[in-house]
């Protein structure tokens, strides 16, 4: 118990709100743990950090975290976060959401937040399924997999969220999994330090609704699968598309720090407006 009390990351949690609602074996706790370790590593001020989420399993995470937190409507977390950041640019704003939240109902907000390059960090807790509503297919469910709304197999093709974010203009993009925790912490920490829009595709396992139905589980087996199919971005560059089929590329995909950041650009707008109205 003493060990727990001295745990340096305990201060980032609202201990009274634990245990969390996630199923045994769910990857989301690992991802939330990675987030607070990265926050600790970077040394964010807890009173000057806001964590925003949408609706879904992962979006319950802010409730457990000891910051100013906002649990919004489904898909809209980035838009709420944009308002917070623009109103008080001195705050650090982190957005969490699941793959349904971020890539389906919130897809439009995702690409536009990337395009603006506004200084937010977005982590997609990507478990390839709608967990909160018990296992419907998401835009991240691989083709051929089963879901309650794809009882004959999913015919949709999933996004590559990192490529989507990069193409839309995100200036920091990376991917890791609940297995590759050290990498995940490193990517989140770098994303937090990045001035501009940072996107982390954090793959997670849902043994309850995705693993079980598709006979991929239990949880440990799903994490071992991450270990097997993930290829570091450096190694992937030397591989052919054939060799990369059915593989998942992890690591830092984009890091372009010199792109103008939105709130800083808006400060220039204010200066121009004042100058022009005075003159």
């Amino acid at each position, binding site marked *: 118990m003493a060990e727990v009390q001295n745990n340096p990351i305990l201060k980032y949690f609202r201990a009274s709100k634990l245990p969390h609602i996630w199923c045994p074996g769910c990857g989301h706790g690992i991802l939330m743990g990675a987030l607070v370790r990265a926050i600790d590593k970077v040394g964010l001020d807890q009173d000057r950090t806001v964590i925003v989420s949408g609706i879904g399993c992962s979006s319950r995470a802010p409730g457990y975290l000891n910051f100013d937190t906002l649990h919004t409507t489904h898909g809209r977390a980035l838009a709420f976060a944009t*308002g917070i950041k623009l109103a008080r640019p001195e705050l650090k704003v982190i957005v969490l959401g699941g793959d349904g939240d971020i890539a389906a109902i919130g897809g439009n907000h995702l690409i536009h937040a990337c395009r603006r390059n506004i200084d937010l960090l977005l982590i997609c807790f990507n478990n390839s399924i709608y967990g909160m509503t018990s296992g419907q297919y998401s835009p991240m469910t691989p083709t051929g997999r089963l879901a309650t709304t794809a009882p004959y197999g999913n015919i949709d093709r999933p996004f590559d969220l990192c490529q989507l974010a990069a193409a839309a203009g995100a200036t920091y993009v990376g991917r890791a999994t609940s297995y590759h925790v050290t990498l995940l912490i490193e990517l989140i920490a770098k994303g937090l330090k990045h001035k501009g829009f940072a996107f982390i595709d954090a793959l997670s396992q849902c043994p309850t609704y995705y693993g079980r139905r598709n006979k991929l589980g239990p949880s440990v087996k799903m994490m071992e699968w991450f270990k097997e199919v993930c290829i570091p971005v450096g190694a992937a560059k030397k591989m052919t598309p054939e060799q990369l089929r059915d593989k998942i590329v992890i690591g830092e995909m984009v890091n372009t720090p010199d792109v103008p950041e939105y709130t800083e650009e808006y400060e220039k707008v204010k200066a121009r407006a004042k100058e022009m109205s005075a003159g």
Partner: protein
Amino acid sequence: MVKTGKGILMQGNEACAEGAIACGMRFFAGYPITPSTEIAELCALRLPQEGGVFIQMEDELSSMAAVVGASLAGAKAMTATSGPGFSLKQENIGFACMAEVPCVVVNVQRVGPSTGMPTSPAQGDVMQVRWGTHGDHPMIALCPWSVQETYNIVIRCFNIAETLRTPVILLMDEIVGHLREKVVLPDPSTLTIVSRRKPQKSSLPYLPYKPVYGDVPAIADYGDGFRFHVTGLSHDYTGFPTNDANVAAEEIKRLHRKVQAARNEITFVHKYRLEDAEIAVFAYGGVARSAMEAVMRAREQGIRAGLFRPITIWPFPEEEVRQSLGALKAVVVAELNLGQMRLEVERCLGKGIEVIGLNRVGGQIITPDDILETLRGVK
């Protein structure tokens, strides 16, 4: 910068933006839509001059979301739209009601349903304003009839929103939004401006949703060190979700109570020559201008007519309607829809009084002649 104290020509939409800026609105997120776009355009020009922020979001949903986010970070925030956009904003208007986030939402009404007629006037959104979101919550909406009143009333909308911690709708119509007329802007130092009350730093443990001022809680701004939680889920005083039916019910009832308790402070009506009237016209927004002229002309012709003009349309001014119109022979409800407010008037007045609907849709206006003719037809 706008001159104060002297008559100037201003558009209704301009007056909306300038009034909001005058009372401290410093964040506007919006999406272009006729006939409200001038509000966004003027905010884009003026807000950065005042150190505020304008952002054109990717859609109406995100505009409303950004407004709520900015307000939680302490800014007086506003968005503006028309019927089609207002439908899309409902999701996060509901969130703002539930999470008690002050903000002002402007709806400059045009003809619907759906895309309807973008540049033509209508008043078809009065019920959407009241009942557009899901769930059960009160709604406050004010409805100006002139450019001057738009300026004055947007300030009241902010004062109400900040006092009661709730969204307030400024329900305009195309007639007023696009009208240019003479206004005299007050000296900013003479304005009554109210800002939300904040919690004391010492009031730990902090309960953001515990009612402190009557039924209104004192919610902190993000970044002020309170580390509190906001959710659209039913929540208790701590702000965290609850599944306790009693707590959830009490929260919904409190949302109603806080508005009901402020009824006298938020209900504004304009009455003209009702003291000795036998018949009255009930009209609001741009249509009330036709009604005013019709009543004046009716009086010249010896008809004892009066005007009842609700400025606050939600909560519906029930008591005022009963008091002012309860003993009349007939009430003509003139509106640019097929009888939405008439339902409320009938509900309040009961069966004893003849309530006559004068309704028009499709973008045509109701003229003073139309109303006068109806008044003359009352037996």
